[in-house]
């Protein structure tokens, strides 16, 4: 290892401390989540909504699902036949969006819900009926401030309030 001269290493220490001081005075960039939420970009892959009226029971979504989260459930008997409908297990879902892409009729779509917690493991497994009702929405005690990320030349990312 090449030894630095004492002067140059002293200068290095001073510059390191100056950098620390600079950031000590810079504004924070935390989004304080329950009070502030981010406005999500278009095409965001959140929890999935299901429209049963469009579904043709092809089962492509269950076949393509790499995490085995999508599963076909038998529906009620109609004229001696049972149609199959998809249900989802959010404990397994990796939000890849393959099911949405592969769906030939557009029955599956992404929503912007991503911040939902479940009370039990079982609640994450949704039958076609529960799946059809759409993803549960988080409840906020007070309506959160909505922020949008803005690219900033000096700071990288900045968050601006949206009304």
């Amino acid at each position, binding site marked *: 290892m090449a030894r630095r001269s004492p002067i140059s290493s002293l200068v290095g220490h001073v510059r390191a401390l100056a950098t*620390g001081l600079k*950031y*000590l005075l810079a*504004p*924070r*960039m*935390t989004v*304080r989540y329950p009070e502030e939420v981010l406005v999500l970009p278009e095409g965001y892959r959140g929890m999935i909504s299901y429209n049963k009226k469009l579904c043709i029971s092809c089962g492509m979504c269950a076949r393509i699902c790499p995490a085995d989260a999508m599963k076909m459930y038998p529906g009620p008997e109609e004229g001696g036949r049972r149609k199959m409908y998809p249900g989802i297990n959010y404990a397994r879902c990796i939000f890849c969006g393959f099911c949405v892409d592969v769906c030939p009729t557009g029955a599956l779509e992404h929503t912007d819900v991503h911040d939902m917690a479940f009370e039990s493991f079982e609640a994450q497994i949704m039958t076609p009926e529960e799946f059809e009702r759409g993803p549960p929405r988080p409840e906020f005690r007070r309506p959160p401030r909505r922020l949008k990320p803005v690219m900033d030349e000096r700071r990288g990312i900045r968050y601006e309030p949206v009304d």
Partner: protein
Amino acid sequence: MMEWLEKILELLFSPWLFVPLVYPGLISVFIVLLFIIWLERKVAAKVQLRYGPLYVLKQLGGAIQLVADLLRYLFAEPIVPEEADRVAFVMGPILLFAAAYLPCVAIPVSGSFYAFRSDISLLVSLGLLTLVPAATLLIGWASNNKFSLIGGLREGYLSMAYEIPLLLSALSMAALYGTMDLVKIVEHQSGFSWGILRNPLAAFTFLLLCFMSTSRFPFEIAEAESEIVMGPYTEYSGILYGLAMGASYIKLYILSIIFSLLFLGGWEPCPPFLSRIGPVAPGLVVFVKAVAIMCVGIFLRSVYPRYRIDQAIRIGWHITFPLSIASVLLSLGVMWVG
């Protein structure tokens, strides 16, 4: 009733009780501990553009987070490992805390208020501080854990590297003032002829070694979290861990007080309204200076990575040791000139 209250107050403000119990003793130690650890987390967070502790008393930016942490430590179960040396394991942190806090008995509060006055109070306080690494070594050995042992030995190696230059740079100031009595040392600095202006070399060396001896970054080598879990304190939990962790902050506090007495003029210059309150009040000036020094120390955490043990020992022997010798020579030169 009033008689009792007066008696209690009189007792509390008698130097032999006030110094170990209130300032610079236990109560101020706890206030500093709660404040400085909170500030350390807050400053490190701010430098990283985060918030740090916030939700415990949000109006004051999470200021009582450390009270919550202390309560958690108090009610957590202190687990003693089966293979550990039980007596040494339990006594270690208590000894460590006590050794870090003991030197405050030799520190004067003001020119007329001290627990005991001695011709060698500087030497007494610094000498008592040298007990701290011994307690750390004991903890490292008693835990019967490889990380604890490595951490304890690292502290042992480091203490060799910092103790001698630390004492030398402090003694160079004693040579400059011609006394080791802390009260007289402060009296010599009246009228802004502070030690840091007379011998900046000694001040720099002493400050650097303060941070080195109290495991501030970049010298946080004994407890290196990313390498050896928590160093000597790895096996500790509950209040025993709290005591062990607090000890290095208390040592920093004591060293900061000694630094402000030696180099920053102690209670000089004391605003007249403070000295009118009573003989205790000038201690507040020292306290503020010491906390300011501690703030510098905790700010380093957010700037520096960690040195390797060999780099730190090299800094100890190759840089600060010659610097401390040079500061002794500088002191002698300043004395010779006038």
